[in-house]
């Protein structure tokens, strides 16, 4: 589904190397965790997938599509196939949980009927049915991240990209968020997640890619957190 072919990313004309000869493949319906120290290149890797950044060398494919050959005008359509979740949630502070999710559907040009139907479904998937009219500042960190996940899945993407989704959360909220991501994966969506959290990785027992200084140093199908 996602295929990195010899991808390198070099900033400042050779001064700093973010990615070095990265080659790997993500199959449909996989749950892949990417681990590594800060600066190992995890976030750069994810940015390549959502076409926020382009490789210096090599190519990145989404199915058979070369991501960095997509014309600018078609990028929004491409991004609709990907749901994104971030460490800092990126919710709109002046919109309620419901409106934040509905906003993503509106931006995709969905009809009002679809929105009225799908937003409550997404909210119940993340167990926030009762808090749909709360504003972000009225929600806990874990709840905010669940709203962000609901927003990411509401357009039924093929893949979820989660950059340190549990980075700001306490252990219980972390557990809940990971369980939800697992549930989404079980429902058929590919998930790629970066994390620092050893407990999360060990509890998941799924594929783990370990990165160090821009290289993939380990790739275990049922990995543990080893650094």
């Amino acid at each position, binding site marked *: 589904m996602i295929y990195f072919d010899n991808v390198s990313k070099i900033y400042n004309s050779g001064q700093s190397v973010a990615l070095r000869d990265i080659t790997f493949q993500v199959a449909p319906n996989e749950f892949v965790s990417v681990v590594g120290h800060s600066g190992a290149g995890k976030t750069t890797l994810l940015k390549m997938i959502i*076409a926020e950044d382009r490789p210096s060398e090599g190519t990145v494919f989404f199915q058979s599509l070369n991501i960095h050959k997509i014309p600018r005008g078609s990028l929004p359509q491409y*991004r609709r196939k990907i749901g994104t979740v971030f460490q800092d949630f*990126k919710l709109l502070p002046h919109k309620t949980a419901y409106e934040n999710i509905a906003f993503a559907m509106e931006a995709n040009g969905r009809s009002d009927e679809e929105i009225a139907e799908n937003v409550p479904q997404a909210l119940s998937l993340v167990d926030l049915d009762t808090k749909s009219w709360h504003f972000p500042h009225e929600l806990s960190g874990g709840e905010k991240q669940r709203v962000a996940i609901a927003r990411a899945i509401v357009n039924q993407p093929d893949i979820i990209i989660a950059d340190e989704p549990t980075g700001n959360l306490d252990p219980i909220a972390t557990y809940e968020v990971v369980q939800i991501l697992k549930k989404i994966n079980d429902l058929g969506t590919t998930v790629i997640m970066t994390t620092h959290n050893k407990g999360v990785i060990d509890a998941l027992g799924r594929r783990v890619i370990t990165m160090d200084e821009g290289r993939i140093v380990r790739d275990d199908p049922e990995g543990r957190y080893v650094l």
Partner: protein
Amino acid sequence: MITSIKRIIRAGFVGFWRNAYVSLAAIFVMTITLVVVCGVMLTNELLNVSLNQIRDKVDINVYLVTTASEQNIFTLKSSLESLPDVAEVNYTSRESAFAAFRERHKNDELTIQALDELGENPLGASLAIRAKETSQYESIATFLQEQRDREEPEAPLIDRINFNQNKSAIDKLTNIINAAERSSYIAMIVLIVSSILISFNTIRLAIYTSREEISIMRLVGASNMYIRGPFILQGIMYGLVAGVLSLLIMYPVVLYLGPATESFFSFNIFNYFVQNFAYLFGVLVGSGILLGTTSSILAIARYLRV
């Protein structure tokens, strides 16, 4: 499609109200810009009108000797009229010149007395010549000069030609008006450029406060047009409101200045404002909308780059 347009319009209005202070600042700055534009337009009109009035006053007067016969005068008149540069020639007979002189000095006892004492009409007939263009007076004057040189000394026709006396005054006035026009253009350009920059920056500020929202919209796959739409709409609204406001501000100003310009330039600026209201409305509101839209598009471009 229609749903998107509806959402863009709604988002535009919401953004306009939610950022009320920023909207207010943008409208305020743009209103000042447009007031300047309107003021310059009116000043130019005023200068043009007075320049034309002065041009209308330019003519060549040929004063003929008192003994000149009507027949000779009409020969001269028709030869002048046959010149391609001449627009019209007005003949003032001795009698009507005398009557006009009496009329002009009717309150001046002494002059009237002196005139009565004289017993006969001391004034000669005259021809007032108007050219099609101001620059053509030179050649008409030359023509008259040649006519005069060819006259027989014992039976002269032309007494004097008064073109040269007026000429320097006219040239001076034309220069003054041209200079005023030029400096008003320079002032207009400076003011408009600086106001555009300020408006642009203010709108950029308005968009800067929404940068988070823009990045989230991009993240969830909103098309660039969908992101840009509300901001462009806000720019249009700023321009529309500022255009209307600037006209509302100008109205009492020209109302106040109207009588003054009437007596000084014999051109009532208030009447001009009212008669050309549609034109002024179109220019001001149109340039307001153009300014707002361009500023929005330029300001948002940097947030849409990949």
